[in-house]
């Protein structure tokens, strides 16, 4: 059962939209990106279906070393009335400020935080911890949980030699407001979230934790909330394809005794 016995915010369901050239795309294990639809249309659809929040990840931005084109951020902000986070290509206080001033509610950084951990402190100082999400790509293997950087392109991926749980502790100490933990071994498999790894992360995180990677069935969402006590669950393909409609998912979670915002 969940360890959070005291009443607080409801558990969140977060569709993740990988963006390239104004289109939403989704790859399997970070490869072979297929176009899934127009960004504004999909954002509006998820708003109407009862998504609690959206994450937009500009997959072209980070590997090629350029910042996100922020015009689509403004269009999303004009269209939807639920919070959203922008990830990808944000590597400075200035580029974060551009995205936030277009109407994004949070920014998420991953590789730039590993390369320059002080950037977390600088972003927190400038915008407040509530804006600053740290994305962590982590692999479970025989040596435990270790982080990966430059995961946007498979050929560029690196192993910076950090233990995942140590890194999570560090981002908390530096003031981050939330962590999205993407368990890469599960990502794209639709075989379920990495409950063990997320539960281990939960133990070191007093801040909100978002589970990412592996959602393939409604039962996977129930399990990750009940067994890993995460605050939110992120998924892409199962939502984009229509395989798991959000209203039905939320009803199943409520029936299982997990508090969610009604659609």
């Amino acid at each position, binding site marked *: 059962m969940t360890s959070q016995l*005291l009443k607080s915010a409801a558990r969140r369901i977060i569709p993740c939209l990988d963006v390239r050239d104004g289109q939403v795309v989704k790859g399997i294990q970070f490869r072979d990106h297929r176009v899934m639809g127009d960004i504004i249309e999909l954002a509006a659809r998820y708003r109407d279906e009862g998504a609690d929040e959206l994450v937009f990840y500009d997959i072209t931005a980070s590997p090629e070393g350029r910042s996100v084109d922020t015009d689509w951020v403004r269009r999303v902000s004009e269209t939807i*009335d639920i919070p959203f986070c922008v990830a990808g290509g944000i590597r400075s206080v200035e580029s974060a400020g551009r995205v936030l001033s277009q109407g994004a509610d949070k920014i998420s950084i991953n590789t730039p935080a590993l390369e320059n951990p002080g950037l977390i402190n600088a972003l927190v100082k*400038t915008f407040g911890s509530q804006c600053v999400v740290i994305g962590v790509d982590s692999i479970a293997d025989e040596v435990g949980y270790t982080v990966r950087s430059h995961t946007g392109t498979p050929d560029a991926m690196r192993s910076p030699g950090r233990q995942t749980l140590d890194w999570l502790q560090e981002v908390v100490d530096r003031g981050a407001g939330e962590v999205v933990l993407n368990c890469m071994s599960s990502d794209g498999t639709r075989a379920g979230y990495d409950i063990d790894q997320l539960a281990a992360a939960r133990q070191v995180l007093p801040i*909100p934790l978002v589970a990412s990677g592996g959602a393939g069935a409604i039962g996977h969402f129930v399990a990750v909330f009940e067994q890993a006590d995460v605050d939110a669950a992120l998924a892409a393909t199962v939502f984009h394809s229509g395989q798991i409609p959000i209203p039905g998912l939320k009803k199943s979670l409520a029936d299982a005794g997990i508090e969610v915002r009604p659609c």
Partner: protein
Amino acid sequence: MSIAVVDSGGANIASVLHALRRLGVDPKFTDDPAEIRQADRVILPGVGAAGRAMEVLDEHGLIPVIQSLQQPVLGICLGMQLLFESSEEDDARLLGLIPGRLTRLEEIDGLRVPHMGWNAITNQAPDTLTEPLDGMWFYFVHSFAAPVSEWTLSTSTHGTDFSAIVRKGNFYGAQFHPERSAKAGARLLRGFLETPLQ
């Protein structure tokens, strides 16, 4: 109707402006004292730290301007917190329009800080603005909160109850983000715009 959204230096104010435009009004985003004084409604948004936000208001000479406003004023999130007397955050002195001191939310028994996500509100005192909102869900992101007091219209819960909506005279405050709270948030903003002049 003229609506002034006070430019208090925060980066992500655009969502408030977009939400007002979705309601069919054209807000002025301004740090001009005359424009703020003349507006029919004033919205004080804000994210970030309390101490820094007060410094920015002070640099623009806006502290006495806001304190002397007679029209309905709505503080949102940090803007709501600024209406109080003081905060544990930075030990900041605030605008002093509503009695009380903000305290940090407690990280006890698995409660997460910041309190981030959707939570329901419960009305505690009758008011035209909040009457249709009882039990509705709003999006919160904050690490400090105002205690429940005689100025509380509605509460929400993060382990213990805190003030979700407050009012003292013409000054209203919402701890959550109505601009990011779907239809419930739009209802609050519309209600505020329709609040009669005092």
